[in-house]
Every structure is written in C-alpha cells, then in structure tokens.
C-alpha cells in the first residue's frame, strides 16, 4: 500500500511542478490556437549547389578558354551578390573545412551533403583547372577583388614569410574543432558582417580595415589568412590544366609580372646558374635533414602552448573562472558562472572536465606544432630548389587565376596564325 501511495504523491508532485495552473475548462467552448512552427527553409540549398557548380564551370571556361579579365570580373560580381549579399555569406567553402574536420574527429557530428559539396567541388576544380574558385566564385575573394583599385607590390620575401600565417590559422582552426572549442574561421570571418549587414563592432572594424588595406594590398585575407586557400594552393600545384599568361609564345617582356598584384608570376631563371649543382644538392640534403628537427621542435612548442591554447574552450575558461571565484580572486559573477552555479553540477565535475580538455589540447597542440614545423620545412625546401624556367609562368600554387595578366600580355592568340611579320619573336626575326 505504502509504495503505491508514495508513487502517487511523487507523480502528483511532478504534475504540480510542471503545471501550477492547469488549463481551465472553458464554458465558452474556446479552442486554443496551435503553436506556429514554420519549417526551416531548405529550398535554397539545392540552388546553392547548382549556382556553385555553374559558377565554377563558367570560371574555368573564362580563365582557360575565353581568357577575358572582364568576364571573370563580372562573374566575381555575380558571386559577390549571390553567395555574399543574397545568401548572407553562408554557406561558404572556407568554413566547410571545419564541418568536414568536425565530422572526422567527432563521429556524432552530421555533415550535410551541401557542405560536403561546398568543401569538395572547389578542391576538385583546383586539381583540374587551378584556383578558379578563388578567381570568381568565393564571395570573400570577390569583395576584396572589387576593392583592389590601386594594388602595390608586396616584397616577395615578405609575402613568403607571411604565407605561413594561413597555415597556422588552418592548424588552429582544426585544433579548435578537434577539441570541441567551436568554429574559429566562421567566428573571425571579417566580411560576413557586411554580407549580413550586421556584426559585432570589433569584427566590423576588422573587416573595414581589411577592405581599406585591400585597396592597396590586393586580397589581404586570401593571401595572409585564408585557411581554405592553403588547401586550394596545394591542390592547384597539381592542377591538370592551369591559366597561362600568354595564349601563344612568351616573349619575356615582363609586363605580366608588373601587372600581377599577388607576386604569383615566376620569372625565367637567369642564363648562368647562380651556383654549382653540388652546392645546391648539399643544401637540399641539409634542409631535408632539418625537416624532422623542425617537426620535433614544433611538436615540443605546441605541447608547451597547452595552457593558452586550452583557453579557446569555453569550459576551460568557465572552470578557471569558478576556481578563481572560489579562491576569492574575483568579485561577483559573470553570466556564465552564475548559470553554472544555478545548475546543480558540482565544481569537481567541471574541474575534471577542464583537466581532460587541457590534456586533449596538449595532445592536439603537439600535432598542431608538428604540422606547422612540417610546412615551414617544406616551404624552405621549396624556396631552395630552383627550377629551370625559360618563360614567365604563373605560380600554380599562389595564382588566383584573376586574369589581370591576360590583358597585359602583348602577344595575342591571332599572332600564332599570322606569319612572322607581326610576331616580335627575336628567333624568328633572325631567320630573315
């Protein structure tokens, strides 16, 4: 008897705590309205995929076949309006890296098909045709391309050194995703605030500064921050076809190199070899030996950075705050600590979670550091190898296929059909 009675009381208690005031019996026959629950708008997702593939295909045609800067730029403007202002800069391929990484590290994380396509399609196009995605499809690239009015040259050495920054950013973003600290790339996207017409004050200032800088240093985000650009750079190095500066034969006038604001055109190697083969080989050997040292050094530094890196995670910050409050280091509560105290979670559980997270960041930091070390080592090797080059060629990794050099090249496609007379090729002149 007693247990049954007890059960009833507790059941009653639940009901009472859920509903202090039961719904009245209406004498007037009142019927309550239903809750309005509009469905998510998924209609656009299909169109996004269509627009992405179409824009990529058009970009590849404009860059490789039609070779018109104006057409590429018009497509860029379309992408800025559609993917940027119309779709509010979301979904974007740059951020999709994080979803894919999250799906990789966390088996419970579902990655929608649209996101997978946004991740894969630009990379596949880069493998086939070069970075046509950067040229005319990416809305972040498009907004910078639109403001690049007076681009100046960045010294190539500075450019090379700064090009390590995107790799570090990519590593940090992957670490953040792996440890469950959120999507850094989306959080610090400088231009999405303009697309949505609203963002936090500091982000708008950051984006505004980027755009002002972008007037003189073309595409500052793409070159010195974009983490997806790192992957596109690697893919484009292997590209099957790539934009060529000249439609026919290069006359080595160097006009294209002046026109390129991205330092993405490699000059022909000088006639005389700058050093003997033996010296080059010895240096290459040394650098290859240096590679594991750099990786180990990076891994060590990464695991030393455990504490500051782990503060990326809100749980670690909360645990430190709570511990500080317990020790009387702070006065008052933050919203987070107040919410934590309102829940019944014991402090020890939070501390244990934070310790586990710190360990996770220690392990992740090691990988992160090793990755940075490996990339720096490979970059050093890349700088030290001198390929023999007879013409001005686009650097397949860093070239955005923007098409500026097409216009500046004095050699026109029709020259090939016409006989020598109009061709300023010295070799052919000599024949006459």
């Amino acid at each position, binding site marked *: 008897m007693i247990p049954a009675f007890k059960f009833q009381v507790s059941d009653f208690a*639940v*009901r009472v705590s*859920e*509903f*202090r*005031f*039961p*719904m*009245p019996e*209406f*004498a*007037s026959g*009142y019927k*309550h*309205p*239903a*809750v309005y*629950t*509009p*469905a*998510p*708008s*998924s209609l656009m997702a299909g169109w996004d995929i269509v627009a992405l593939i179409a824009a990529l295909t058009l970009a590849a045609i404009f860059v490789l076949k039609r070779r018109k800067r104006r057409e590429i730029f018009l497509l860029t403007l379309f992408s800025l309006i559609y993917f940027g202002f119309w779709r509010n800069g*979301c*979904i974007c391929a740059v951020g*999709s890296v*994080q979803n*894919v990484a999250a*799906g*990789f590290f966390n*088996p*419970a994380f*579902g*990655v*929608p*098909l*649209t996101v*997978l396509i946004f*991740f*894969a399609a630009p*990379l*596949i196009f880069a*493998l086939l045709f070069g970075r046509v995605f950067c040229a005319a499809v990416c809305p972040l690239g498009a907004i910078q391309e639109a403001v690049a009015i007076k681009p100046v040259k960045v010294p190539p050495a500075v450019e090379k050194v700064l090009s390590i920054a995107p790799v570090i950013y990519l590593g940090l973003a992957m670490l953040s995703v792996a440890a469950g600290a*959120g*999507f850094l790339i*989306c*959080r610090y996207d400088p231009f*999405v605030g303009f697309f*949505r017409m*609203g*963002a936090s004050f500091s982000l708008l200032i950051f984006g505004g500064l980027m755009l002002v800088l972008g007037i003189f240093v073309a595409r500052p985000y793409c070159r010195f921050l974009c983490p997806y650009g790192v992957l596109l750079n690697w*893919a484009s190095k*292997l590209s*099957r076809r790539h934009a060529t500066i000249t439609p026919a034969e290069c006359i080595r006038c160097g006009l294209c190199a002046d026109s390129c604001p991205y330092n993405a055109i490699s000059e022909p190697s000088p006639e005389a070899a700058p050093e003997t083969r033996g010296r080059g080989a010895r240096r290459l050997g040394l650098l290859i030996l240096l590679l594991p040292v750099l990786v180990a050094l990076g891994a060590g530094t990464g695991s030393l950075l455990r504490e500051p890196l782990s503060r990326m995670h809100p749980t670690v910050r909360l645990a430190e705050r709570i511990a500080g409050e317990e020790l009387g280091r702070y006065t008052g509560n*933050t*919203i987070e600590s107040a*919410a*934590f105290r*309102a*829940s019944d979670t014991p402090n020890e559980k939070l501390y244990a979670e934070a310790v586990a997270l710190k360990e996770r960041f220690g392990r992740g930091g090691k990988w992160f550091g090793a990755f940075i070390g490996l990339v720096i080592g490979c970059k050093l090797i890349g700088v030290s190898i001198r390929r023999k080059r007879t013409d001005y060629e686009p650097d397949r990794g860093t070239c955005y296929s923007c098409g500026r050099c097409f216009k500046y090249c004095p050699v026109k496609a029709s020259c090939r059909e016409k006989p020598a007379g109009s061709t300023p090729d010295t070799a052919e002149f000599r024949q006459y």
Partner: protein
Amino acid sequence: MKTTKRRDFIKNLARGAVLAGIAGVCGMLGLRKNKYQCSGRCGTCKPANGGVCPLDSAAGSGFVWQLDPEKCTQCGRCATHCVLAPSAVKCFHSYSICGYCDLCGGYLRPDAKERNTGAENQLCPTAAIRRKFIEDPYYQYTIDEELCIGCGKCVRGCSTFGNGSLYLQVKHNLCVNCNECAIARACPSDAFRRVPASEPYLLKSNQEKRIS
C-alpha cells in the same frame, strides 16, 4: 623531354591520390549513419510515430540549431548575440499548457499597479504580448513575433510564477542556420544544440503530451 614526362607521371599519380582522398572523406562522411546522442525528449521514435528516429537517417538530411527550453536560463543573450537583428530566437507560447491566468507573471510587471494592457503594467519591453479576454477570469496571451526580440523576460516571469508555457525557440523561417550559431557559443547554460531539420522544434507541448 624524359624528365618532364616523369614529372607529369608523378603529378598525375599525386592528383589521382588526392582526388581519391577527397572522394573517400566525402563518401565516408556523407554515407555515415548518424549516432546522435538521443535526448529522449522529442518523442518521434515512439511506435505511434513510426518508431524511427530521424537522427538515424543519413547525415545528408541536415541539422538545424534549436534551444532546449529546459536548460535555458533566460540570460538575455539570445536577444543580443544572434547574427540577425532582431534575433531569430522568439518567444513561443504553448497554449495547451497555459493557465490563462488573469495575473500573468509573463505579461505583467511584478510591481504592476493594475491587471490591464496599460504600457506601464507590461513586462515585455517591446509590448509584443497581446492580452485578450476570453471569459471571466481567463485571458489568452499571444506573442506578436514581429515585435518579439527574444529577450526572455516574459519567459523568466512565466516559469517563475506560472506554468512555463512561454519559452524561447529558434524560429526557423528566420534562422540562417550558421555553421556555428553565435548564440550557441555565447549561451551560458549550454542550451543550444543541433536537431534534425525534420524535427526542428523542442516544444513544451510535446512534453505535456508525454506526461498526460
């Protein structure tokens, strides 16, 4: 001539490997069955609904952000941290669990002089709650979602003094479904999570059905 051919061959091999890698990763993630953590609250897996959890379908079905009203502490950040202005989080009202009180903790300020629609008596900063007389002594409260900013003041009032029939939800015709929800990141009580797009709301009226 020979060296360039060798280089091309290696490049082709590398390109093929990278393509296979991308295809592999995408295939693995796209075809993977989701083992999502069951909250046990949505109720779609009950035999009456076909017994199938929408989360067990392939990942391609998509997820959206939603906030769990059980966890929400009404801190007010939903109103300030959404990338949209005004926020995509709105107050929802489950009429089926409302007490239709005359003295409504969600509608009237605690120090209200009278129980009427006078602006000085209303708790809502944007007057987004409409009060309609039904029969003595019952009133119906309706949220004007055009005016609601998702601050949660009424939610706190209703859950403190009433049944808790007012609560915050992400309204999905407004939500742009960011990769990482800006409110989720700022939420102090960890109330935001991804839910399947086929079941995008965590309604309290579902819970009521479960209890009775």
